[in-house]
């Protein structure tokens, strides 16, 4: 529940960002992020809210961990489930 998952910002519209999480597109709220967010930035998503802007230069290792977890995970893997739960917390665009 505190894991959070990083995604890449595609576009920003007021307090809503459209964010790509490993190929899944979701809308996140920007009410509580600490810095202005722009397309191309990465943000850490927790329960549907961006809680931190991560500079693209620093995101590498973080992304690799999540990528590995999502690819390798067997069904029922707790970390992968939590990551997918965080992804599901974003609003489906539409």
């Amino acid at each position, binding site marked *: *529940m*505190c*894991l*959070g998952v990083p995604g890449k910002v595609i576009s920003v519209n007021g307090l809503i960002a459209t964010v790509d999480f490993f190929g899944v597109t979701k809308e996140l*709220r920007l*009410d*509580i*992020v*600490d810095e202005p967010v722009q397309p191309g930035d990465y943000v*850490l998503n*927790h*329960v*549907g*809210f961006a*809680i*931190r802007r*991560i*500079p693209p230069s*620093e*995101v590498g*290792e*973080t992304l*690799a*961990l999540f990528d*590995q977890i999502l690819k*390798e995970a067997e069904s*029922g*893997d*707790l*970390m992968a*489930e*939590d990551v997918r*739960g*965080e992804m*599901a*917390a*974003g*609003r489906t665009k539409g």
Partner: protein
Amino acid sequence: MPAPDLFQELKFRDPARARALSEALHREAKAIGRSPIPLMHVCGSHEQAIARFGLRAVLPRELEVIMGPGCPVCITDTPEVDEAVALAAQGAVVCTYGDMLRLPGNSRSLADARTDGGSVEVVYSVAQAVEIARQRPDREVVFFASGFETTAVATAAVVLSEVPRNFSVLSAHKYVPAAMEVVAEMEETNIEGFIAAGHAATITGWGIFEPFARRTGTPVVVAGFEPLDVLAAILECVILIKEKRPEVMNCYPRCVTREGNRPAQEKLWKVFQVADGVWRGIAAVPRGNLELRPEWDHLNARRRFRIDTSKVGGAEKNLLAEQCICGSIMSGLANPKDCKLFGKECRPETPVGACMVSSEGACKIWHMYGGLPDLREVG
């Protein structure tokens, strides 16, 4: 020293760095010259990383890395669950995060409430609970809010934005620094260093731990969730213990700063205030609960409704639950394998205690990934 090929098995992306970290850990722990040296982390996601990647197998035998009260679902107290169950029985639509569904109250869980005909909806975000309230203007929609400060800021953001009149919050949010104080005072556990949760510190900043470290004489290291992040943080903590420096070290600088996320903190404290609480299995935790401030009474389910838990609480005694040692596990006094119910009567499909319910509970994590490696005996 662990066998070299172990690192391949652990699937570190950088086995050489992992080996270097492990060797440094062995050297520094030995230099302290006593055993065991208990360290505590307070985050379910850390336990997942430690257990999933088998990190305890590469730790020196002097080190004990214990999971403390780091699972917000597990420490949600039974009367809080009873309130949510009662609200569902009284006709409200109760929305909550998935792990809360099967958390036992005194005698019923929200899953039971649903079986009994109550409306219980699982959401991944408090924003989804607000959407449900918009879609169902004829019903009272209560968000049963669990989680530490990282999750509470999302609830705060929603309270501060426009919400429909039929939406309210039943807060079971908790404040981690308060529980660290309680555990640090427990003589039985004798924790020598803390690993703090990276994403909670993203919000609060690492500076919040400085008075704690000074007062308790216990170093605190903020860690990320990469296997190597966790090992590096453990190494820093061991070095601080060796050098008798009760300081705070930030090993997760890409997400955590000293001052943290100021706008989020402002929102958090505009909506919530700390209150003395009881954490399931732990004890009374002074200033450990986050309750809505009085100006939000109109959104506070405890103020808005007369919640009658007398019909849902504590009817029959649960003999199995009395044998559960979740409290000792969350205080760092025991590990899941010390419990005679673990993996037998208590399993993820049929949880007896709170720690087997949540994906962040120590028992569920150990059940999935294993906990203490057998290597300790042979290595």
